[in-house]
């Protein structure tokens, strides 16, 4: 996609000493991120495996407990995250087109959307705490007629919680990118951090796209 010609090597001040040219640096960074994403998938994979097993054991529990989750707000959050993936992609495109100002704007929108996601998540969680839906042994809600209802919500809190942590880390990265883009570090010759953070952000988005139907849309 990007045209990293060999002339790139003299232009970039972010070129590291141990690489031969900017192409090699860019390829290495991108590959490293892809491999890291594989480990992330397996990291979540353990929880998805637990989900599959418990859903197979207690199918009726999952149907019952799912009704406690607010599909509307879950849906809004899905749209918000997909939107943020789009703006990250646009930030990369702006970098490729050398539109430095647009990089910053798109990153700022991404950051804002991520914040919206977390705020909605915050209200969802506090509402549940309010009515006594806590994870594990602290579970005290009586609205679900199933003795193992706590298991569903333990998985819910663990998986959305871990996803939430990834969103927060992503926000940190976006803020750092925004700062760097405001200082004019990125252009069509060098935008590796934007590209690989974008990859990470897409993964966070995709994981939510799995979590949403698995928890909210059971019937």
């Amino acid at each position, binding site marked *: 996609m990007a045209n990293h010609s060999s002339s790139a090597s003299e232009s970039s001040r972010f070129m590291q000493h141990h690489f031969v040219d900017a192409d090699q640096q860019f390829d290495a960074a991108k590959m490293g991120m892809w491999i890291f994403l594989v480990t992330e998938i397996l990291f979540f994979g*353990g929880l998805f495996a637990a989900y599959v097993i418990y859903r197979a054991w207690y199918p009726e529990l999952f149907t019952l407990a799912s009704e406690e989750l607010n599909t509307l707000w879950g849906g809004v959050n899905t749209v918000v995250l997909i939107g943020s993936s789009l703006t990250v992609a646009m930030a990369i495109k702006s970098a490729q087109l050398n539109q430095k100002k647009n990089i910053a704007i798109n990153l700022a929108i991404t950051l804002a959307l991520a914040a919206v996601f977390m705020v909605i998540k915050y209200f969802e969680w506090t509402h549940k705490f309010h009515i006594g839906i806590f994870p594990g042994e602290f579970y005290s809600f009586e609205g679900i007629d199933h003795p193992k209802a706590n298991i569903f919500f333990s998985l819910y809190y663990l998986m959305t919680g871990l996803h939430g942590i990834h969103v927060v880390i992503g926000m940190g990265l976006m803020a750092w990118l925004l700062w760097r883009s405001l200082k004019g570090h990125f252009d069509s010759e060098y935008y590796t951090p934007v590209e690989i953070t974008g990859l990470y952000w897409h993964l966070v988005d995709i994981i939510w796209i799995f979590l949403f139907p698995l928890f909210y849309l059971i019937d």
Partner: protein
Amino acid sequence: MDTAESSSNLKKIQVQRFKPDDNPDNHYLNEETGLWSWLTTVDHKKIGIMYLASITFFFFVGGLMALLVRTELWTPAKTFIEANTYNQLFTLHGAVMIFLFLVPSVPAALGNFILPLQLGAKDVAFPRLNLLSYYLYLAGSFIAIYAIFSGGIDTGWTFYTPYSSSTGGAVTTMTFGVFVIGFSSILTGVNFITTIHKMRAPGLSWDKLPLFCWGLYATSVIQILATPVLAITLALVAMERILGIGIFDPALGGDPVLYQHFFWFYSHPAVYIMIVPGFGVVSEIISTFSKKHIFGYWAIALSSLAIAFIGFLVWGHHMFVSGQATLASMVFSFLTFLVGIPTGIKMFNWTATLYKGSIKLASPLLYIFGFFFLFLVGGLTGIVLGSIALDVHLHDTYYVVAHFHFVMVGGMVMAFLAGLHYWWPKITGKMYNETMAKIACGIIFVGFNVTFLPQFVMGSQGMPRRYFNYIEQFQSFHQVSTIGSYILGLGFLMVFYYLVKSIYRGEQATSNPWGSRALEWQISTLPPLHNFHHTPVIVNGPYDYHKPMEEFQLGLAESGNGHGHDADLEVTKEGEDLSAE
């Protein structure tokens, strides 16, 4: 960079010969000095040395615990410590040795130092990430040590639930420590895979990649695929203790056997994280000291990958008596036998490499022969344990203890020591005392067998593992084993003594004391800060001992450029015998 015409698939480049300098004035240890330069270094060689120092420390900590455990077992009842102390000691011995020593030993310590040198690269792909890995490892180690002093853990290194979620002590802290170390391991894996893919010197095609790199590659694949699952599993144990989430707790509707599936999904492949890089070391040393091309290059390279992949499908063989379905046991047993085959193939290939070689029985090779015997016993007893009916009898007895010590200590530690002795001149620029090295190797070999052979007999007789008290029938076996452990400890101390002594009093090493054809020996000793003053060009494989040394010392005539993966190079030699200036 192309001097002559470059056709579509054949590139002509101009090269010259670079002779390594035996004792250069400037090298990686004196170009930057001071404590701060070490703590903030991104040089893979220095990071490798920091790992080496750390794992050596933890090896002796774990070893001391082993000696205390063995001493306690001198008598059938209490010898000198309480049952609870004993339980904590064997847990920590296992956890320290596995997570703090074995997993990082060859990949993070030797691998860090050697991998970029063998690839002709200036560093790993992500030097700062590499330093971060080291600090994560260090942080995780400190958390683990803190756990020892803030209550200890007595769960066994396997953290089986529901025991681990109900017992007292600092289990939560310990799992967090292992979690952090896990990330160190993952990042090292990411770094190495990227490095091997993207940082190879011109001409270094996949079929010329040294087998040590293949070993590290397979290891890294396991690290990135298995470690995250361990991380999430241990996080779940911590959540179980903090929040009582009930995933593994039968009282809350969970399943304790599920934990074992999760745990072994990581921890069986983790066994290969510990042993596969050792295989790489063996290939390098066998070839160098018999001055002969490795036999069956592709068989050895691909069998490492085969082990890495099949290794993911055999975890259930730890659970034949756990209550898992009979059919599952059958499948896992079958796959376990399949994973034995690539390992056997390697043994045969290494033996065949010796045929018609020019064998010099120097200390690294001696350690390798120690590896051969011990690993063979370890591997074959693995076949015994893979057989379901036999495992039903031998599971959780001393037979299993002896088996994995033969693989992990007999196999991996011997391979690690062999590698350490082999690369020691390149790392430190000094030669150790060869006679002492050979004596120490003998002591370790004898001590190891005296320690662990009796355990096979005890285990077959039915002696369960993790026992504080035992019935008197086993006392003589235990006493022989304990004496063996002292001999073994003495052997390791001796290695430590003469290696450290060599740094201060050792003879100066030449750049290539073993006459190896591998790339890391074609640069000066000590290596320069950025490894290569020139960009090396690879025309021959690392095991082409039938060709003269000169053909292995080629670099780009115009230095400073030219990394890439041009498989087809036509080399024009100019300026023969130019030195590295």
